């Protein structure tokens, strides 16, 4: 039943497992990048400097209203094709991978930023005021009072962002066939007698990737949530 998987065209992807591995790699690197850039953006959005707040707000409101597809296609057709950015990649496959990660970071960091910011906003102002009244310094207030509470309330939303990112990596198929959705696009046209099987394989693949992650992190979030 699965003989068709051995075709040389699919072997380029490393088979179905290889394709899903690229999905995982894309998710992993994009997640790390988004966490870093998203945290910087969130820091800007809550900073006391008006210009930084304005920049953070403008970035988030512009980028998150643009379809990810536009961003990924632009990363490939403008950054890679026109500006010849290689980002250290040596062949077209590697370059596609890297500019895609760049695009995912640019987009996903908006949601990381908004999540972190809303986490900080869940901490009642009285908490910080009480801490300051006790004579704690700025960094003590942040480290002992505000951030521990904020962090606990962002676990579930951040998990959702991570899962959305995992699913969003399929948009890479619009610029290069390197990951799971690209392989599915190639496969489903050729195996017209096994459409259901091909769909089921890829859909279940994503369910396996995302559902346990969501359930586990949802459980963790509930466990550590701050009762108010």
């Amino acid at each position, binding site marked *: 039943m699965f003989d068709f998987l051995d075709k040389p065209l699919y072997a380029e992807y490393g088979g179905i497992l290889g394709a899903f591995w690229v999905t995982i790699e894309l998710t992993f690197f994009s997640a790390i990048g988004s966490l870093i850039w998203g945290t910087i953006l969130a820091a800007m959005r809550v900073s006391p400097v008006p210009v930084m707040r304005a920049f953070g707000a403008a970035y988030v*409101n512009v980028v998150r*209203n643009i379809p990810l597809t536009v961003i990924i296609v632009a990363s490939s057709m403008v950054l890679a094709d026109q500006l010849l950015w290689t980002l250290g990649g040596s062949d077209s496959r590697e370059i596609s991978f890297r500019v895609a990660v760049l695009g995912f970071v640019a987009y996903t960091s908006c949601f990381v930023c908004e999540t972190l910011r809303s986490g900080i906003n869940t901490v009642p102002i009285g908490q910080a005021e009480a801490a300051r009244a006790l004579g704690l310094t700025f960094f003590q207030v942040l480290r002992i009072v505000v951030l521990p509470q904020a962090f606990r309330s962002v676990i579930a939303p951040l998990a959702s962002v991570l899962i959305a990112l995992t699913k969003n990596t399929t948009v890479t198929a619009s610029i290069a066939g390197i990951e799971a959705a690209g392989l599915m696009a190639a496969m489903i046209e050729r195996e*017209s007698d096994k459409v259901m099987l091909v769909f089921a394989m890829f859909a279940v693949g994503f369910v396996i990737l995302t*559902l346990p992650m969501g359930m586990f992190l949802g459980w963790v979030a509930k466990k550590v949530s701050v009762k108010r």
Partner: protein
Amino acid sequence: MTQQASVLYDAPGPRARQRNVVYTVLFVAAVVAAAWWLLDQLAERNQLDAQNWTPLLEAGVWTDFFLPGLLNTLQAAFLSILIALPVGVLLGIGRLSQHAWIRWPAAVWVEFFRATPVLILMLFARELYRLTGVDTDILPLYAVVTGLVLYNASVLAEVVRAGIVSLPRGQSEAAEALGLRRSQVMTSVLLPQAITAMLPAIVSQLVVIVKDTALGGVVIRFEDVMAQFRPLPTSDYRPSVLATLTAIAVIFLVLNSILTTFANWLEKWLRQRKKGTGTVVTADLMEEQAPGVRLEDTEAGAAGKDKG
């Protein structure tokens, strides 16, 4: 506004204000330097030449490419939400059913389609329609709408469920005390309130749908706004790829900003009006709704609950 940051900072004194001026200068310098570097790179590749951008000002670019594309985008988006909404309501109610044989299939359906990427659903739908001999002109629209409906019905099902769960308990208790049957409690008491509470969330889901149609434009060859990035740069008008993509991004930005503003206004209006319980399923964080995560456990769901 300094209001939102006040959990982190006190009102600045003279020294803090001085420091902020220094930060402002450094930050602006850094942003200008980064922008300069990027523009310099673009100029080097002749991307900023006027002939690449001026074609966008010609009427034909809009009447022949962007506007027909935008019409298709809107058509797909509205069709999707119109079909997804009733399906989502049924699934959402199904998940709250007392009968396990309804509850479980509904739960499996919702979690499965929330976990599957929209692109996978679109590719599958396209192939299914192709094999069943659907007309090739209409096929991309069908595939895009089918993919979006399958995904968004499941997302909306969760919103419906969170909406119903977030209503004050007294609502269903009072209805039951009046002797209404469970189906009556649902259809004449809970559902109308839940749908009202959901309105902002539905409008923001429309933003997600509009953005996802672009995926169909590239991969399924659906003739939406996004799809114009292929024919337009090679047409007689010859704007550059960068200019075309910029225009597409701006079109989406304007469209989605209007929808977002409307959703926020709706949310504020619903919270302030006297009628009803004031329960609102907030529009925030809709996009990241993930499989396995219960909406009412997250901030978005909890926010509605507090006001209930």
